[in-house]
């Protein structure tokens, strides 16, 4: 059971992430009026927001340190926030600014913060093998660091995931695969693409641990993750931890969700992990004033990040040619005309 202090921290991360996504949604859609044009506005390109996924990241990352590695998928913001990624520079990156985490080169699906060993990427299950590699490095160096790969329930049908499981299992590596099950992979409901409704069951075939948290509950995630991360840290091998979460928005901004029954959208809204945790906190004697104060603090932090981002300069066009190599070769590389 998390301490009340920990519960407060988890709550603050979750409301920060929820607020962040709401504000990014507003910023994204502004400038895409009256007709939605994906390349217009202050944040162009695809944007995958994670409202409804917060409990998983907050519950898991509570057990992680800066030195532990996290890889995240195309829906990364809540995980980045819980891992302690610099929110100002992350936001600047999403706004395509020069002082962003990747100088505007990466964008929202390709955020890298080596200070806290966080990275995310846009191809399905792409982060699994690198997480296994980080775990391999930790083991070779005899540290007690762990690696956590986050991915969606749709992503666990990808070959790279299965190969990672086997490799992690046979080498007994300190890695946890956290599967965020929001029931949907864009327009495809889980039952259309797999007969295995409990993704953690896939651990059995790889002789590793698997556990599913069946409710969207940060406390339950915290407890399951304590065991999974603890097991990894103690040298006792990998785990699949699947968490039921909910997609409270479209797959990406602009997704009208014509394929999704209204009841499903409503159900996702009803099962609010943030509200659930607030109720838990009240039971622990945290009163509404304090909850409000936490929410205000979270909002202020989000606002500051967005303001920071908007004040930052855009990169110069010429910067497009930089950073391809760590050691830029002396000869022509084709970047020049």
């Amino acid at each position: 059971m998390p301490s009340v202090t920990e519960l407060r921290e988890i709550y603050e991360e979750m409301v920060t992430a929820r607020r962040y996504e709401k504000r990014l949604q507003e910023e994204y859609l502004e400038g895409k009026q009256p007709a939605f044009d994906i390349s217009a506005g202050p944040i162009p390109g695809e944007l995958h927001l994670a409202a409804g996924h917060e409990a998983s990241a907050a519950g898991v990352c509570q057990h992680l340190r800066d030195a532990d590695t996290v890889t995240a998928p195309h829906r990364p913001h809540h995980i980045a926030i819980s891992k302690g990624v610099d929110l100002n520079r992350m936001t600047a990156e999403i706004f395509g600014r020069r002082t962003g985490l990747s100088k505007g080169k990466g964008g929202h699906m390709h955020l890298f913060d080596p200070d806290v060993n966080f990275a995310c990427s846009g191809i399905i299950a792409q982060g699994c093998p690198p997480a296994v590699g980080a775990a391999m490095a930790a083991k070779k160096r005899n540290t007690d660091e762990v690696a956590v790969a986050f991915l969606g329930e749709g992503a666990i049908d990808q070959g790279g995931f299965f190969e990672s499981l086997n490799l992690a299992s046979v080498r007994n590596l300190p890695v946890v695969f956290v599967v965020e099950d929001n029931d949907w992979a864009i327009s495809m409901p889980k039952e259309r693409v797999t007969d295995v409704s409990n993704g953690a069951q896939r651990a059995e075939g790889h002789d590793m641990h698997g556990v599913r948290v069946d409710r969207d509950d940060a406390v339950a995630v915290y407890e399951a993750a304590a065991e999974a991360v603890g097991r990894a840290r103690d040298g006792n091998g990998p785990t699949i931890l699947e968490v039921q979460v909910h997609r409270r928005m479209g797959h990406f901004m602009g997704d009208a969700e014509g394929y999704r029954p209204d009841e499903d959208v409503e159900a996702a809204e009803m099962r609010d992990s943030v509200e659930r945790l607030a109720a838990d906190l009240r039971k622990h004697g945290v009163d509404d004033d304090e909850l409000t104060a936490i929410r205000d603090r979270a909002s202020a932090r989000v606002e500051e990040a967005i303001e920071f981002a908007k004040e930052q300069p855009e990169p110069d066009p010429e910067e497009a040619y930089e950073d391809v190599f760590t050691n830029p070769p002396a000869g022509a590389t084709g970047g020049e005309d």
Partner: protein
Amino acid sequence: MSETPGEPVATERELTMSRAMVEAISSEMAADEEVFVMGEDVADYGGIFDSTQGLLEEFGRDRVMDVPISETGFIGAGVGAAQAGMRPIVELMFADFFGVAMDQIYNNMAKNTYMSGRSVSVPMVLTTAVGGTYNDAAQHSQTLYGTFAHLPGMKVVVPSNAYDAKGLMHNAIRDDDPVVFMFHKRLMGLGWMPAPEGPKTPVPEDDYTIPFGEADVKREGTDATVVTLGLHVHRAMEAADELVDEGIDTEVIDLRTLVPLDAETVLESVRKTGRLVVVDEDYRSYGVTGEIVARAAEDALADLEAVERVAMPDVPIPYARPLEEEVNPGVEDIAAAVRATR
């Protein structure tokens, strides 16, 4: 089948490129039970880029199949079904995702015909979305034309407008070889990604085919030849219009297919103009621009007076707007390259 011999019936009906593609698929599915579609989000969603819009309603889930996010599995399954005599149309949502499934694409789909001494054929269409211009960054913006065209055994089709897309799609489905059908997102006519003027064209209602290996001279000119494909056909046309005011008469060639390549049309034009500009949204080195220039050098060297390439520099595609605009060849870049040949 309502095949019209010769020129298709003139029509005023205009379609977006996605509607034209779907019309061809639908007609082939109606005519042949062996044709089916599979891919991620091809059923209820109708394809993220509308490439299968309406097919579920028309043909049902058995023939328009959503599949797990397992590209190696379902693209390889397409190869197997094709070898078993069916005619699968398999969608790889973005060409960028080929990485997780390339073995099935280039070691099986592309090579089985040859490796079997033609005792096996793979009549499959791999449709895939390509291209940038909307800030989707390094993993969702590539065209990879050169990569697919480089590897022997696949026909590679890149339509630039609705009329061509329909005729090329009919041909692709009927072809007994694997065809990679690369459609540019910006040309599809999506409500959320406005297309330039040009890709929406009149499209005959009847079936018609456009043979592979026939480039289209979009604009005749005597001063310079611009060879290009996909989105950049439209950018080249705009550049050519602009150059008219400067007294430069530009010929614009739309390759339409990379494999087979209609080198003859390119050579003929180069023999006339003596000046060659190749424009590509793929990376500059070891790709389409180099190939076209090499063909011209091999077979029309004496006529060549100047050569320019306009392509993506060899950098991963950056996210931020000023950076992507810098690397993706624009109308001005093309016009400048044509001027530079003078």
